[in-house]
């Protein structure tokens, strides 16, 4: 009797693994299948070289570059905001802050990532854009700058928290060795601790980039819905994610080429985040080996 129970529990646990893996594979399969059908009708060369994305207009162009540039531009701005701030916070908390302060402030910072992204989106649109228009008069009401900045604030805890963990994991003995040779705290932090934690810091940055690239709500609300092949942060752009939202909510006929564009866009996005996650996973594995 007990044996049967053990057997059933084991199978039950295994089936939950199976379901999760199965669902993931299923999503990838659907993405791949629909994207494949899309590329039967639109050449892959046009997809990657055409600089216009107008599947919903009469003059149809299927160039992913405008969506890609919108995605990369907003993500770049987000990282430009989050990297210096997040890393400074990480270094301060790990190397300078009193223990008590670190213990209180870290969960508070992580709250930033817990704010619903729709709130961030409205914040970008209603607060940040009007504020920035005070300095940049020709800033459109939808633009990648404020969407990027707000997205940067959202991903700060990814960088600050994970890099703080990496910095904190550096053995105290290394700091002592550095202090013992007459190094200041600043020299020790930047010449010993940060290099020793570099792999963990890189992982944190990659995860933050991956999160920014996949972020949907903020850019859909604040960056606009105009696919535009540009690096100008003051004009409306459309990201891959925002386009997918637009089509999913719109009245595009199922099974049409227009409908399949979201799978082509989706698989492009997936390849990006998949590569980033795989890269960060391989770095993390190396890093774990080093401290064991």
């Amino acid at each position, binding site marked *: 009797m007990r044996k049967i129970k053990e057997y059933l529990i084991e199978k039950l646990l295994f089936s939950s693994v199976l379901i999760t893996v199965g669902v993931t594979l299923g999503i990838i399969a659907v993405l791949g299948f629909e994207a494949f059908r899309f590329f039967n009708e639109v050449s892959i060369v046009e997809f990657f070289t055409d600089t216009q994305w107008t599947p919903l207009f009469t003059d149809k162009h299927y160039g992913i570059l405008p969506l890609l540039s919108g995605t990369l531009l907003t993500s770049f701005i987000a990282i430009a905001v989050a990297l210096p701030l997040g890393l400074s916070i990480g270094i301060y908390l790990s190397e300078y802050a009193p223990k008590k302060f670190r213990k209180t402030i870290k969960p508070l910072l992580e709250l930033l990532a817990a704010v619903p992204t729709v709130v961030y989106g409205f914040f970008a649109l209603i607060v940040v854009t009007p504020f920035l228009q005070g300095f940049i008069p020709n800033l459109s009401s939808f633009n990648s700058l404020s969407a990027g900045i707000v997205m940067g604030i959202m991903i700060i805890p990814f960088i600050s928290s994970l890099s703080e963990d990496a910095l904190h994991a550096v053995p105290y003995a*290394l700091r002592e060795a550095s202090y013992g040779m007459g190094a200041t705290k600043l020299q020790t932090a930047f010449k010993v601790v940060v290099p020793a934690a570099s792999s963990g810091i890189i992982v944190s940055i990659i995860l933050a980039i991956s999160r920014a690239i996949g972020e949907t709500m903020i850019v859909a609300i604040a960056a606009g819905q105009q696919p535009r092949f540009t690096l100008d942060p003051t004009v409306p752009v459309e990201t891959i994610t925002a386009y997918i939202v637009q089509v999913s909510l719109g009245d595009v006929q199922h099974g049409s080429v227009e409908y399949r564009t979201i799978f082509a866009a989706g698989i492009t996005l997936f390849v990006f985040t998949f590569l980033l996650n795989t890269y960060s996973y391989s770095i993390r594995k190396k890093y774990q080996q080093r401290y064991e």
Partner: protein
Amino acid sequence: MEITMEKIADKKTVVHQTNEVNQASKIEVKDVNVWYGDFQAIKGINMNIKPNTVTAFIGPSGCGKSTFLRLFNRMNDYIDTHRMEGKIKINGNNIYKKKVNVEELRKEIGMVFQKPNPFPKSIFENVAYGLKIQGIKDKKFIIERVEKALKQADLWEEVKDNLKKSALALSGGQQQRLCIARTLAVEPSIILMDEPTSALDPISTSKIENLIFELKKKYTIIIVTHNMQQASRISDYTAFFYIGELIEFGKTKKIFTNPEHKRTENYITGRVG
């Protein structure tokens, strides 16, 4: 070369009044008490340490010998609850005066730790670290110093073809000699060693003991050890600590053959501790 040496000599203002570089220092300890919060870890210690000698600190675990050792380069400063009273004079200058620049002091007083703690950098970068943080940029000078320090630490022959290799790839014993080389590269006048061989095998240990014997010619060395044989082999003077007090301090030969206190004798002969 000349100019660089002068620059360094100028910086040595904490414990050296003269321009002479790398001369072993004498140490005077006067009425030193240390507390961690309410706990008194060091109780009224007085001690004089002569230049170019090896002094061993022995005593059971928790007797305060490591705490005491770390007073000489102010490594205890980072412990929040740490409080210190008294004077420690190196070449006549009290290192606990407010004006003292702790970073400058630590360039004069090198430290080797219990577990080898090389930086996750190349062998060369490890030894060059102390020079680079002083702002020295003269590459030729750094290369010469690194070679000299590695030779002094008896590691040069083993690593001279692999200076770019990661220090973490070295064996434990090699790593500890690298840490000694790293300390020597800055040319301190005192070297503090906190159980430097406790994590090493007997062969590596004897290499480091031979090294200490050589280094004594140029440096003043203080070593904390749990190994009685080691203390008797390598030290000129021995200090026996017991629960924060200095029970006995004198020539090693005398301490080990004819100790004045019963406690010292019990510890050395293995009856206590």
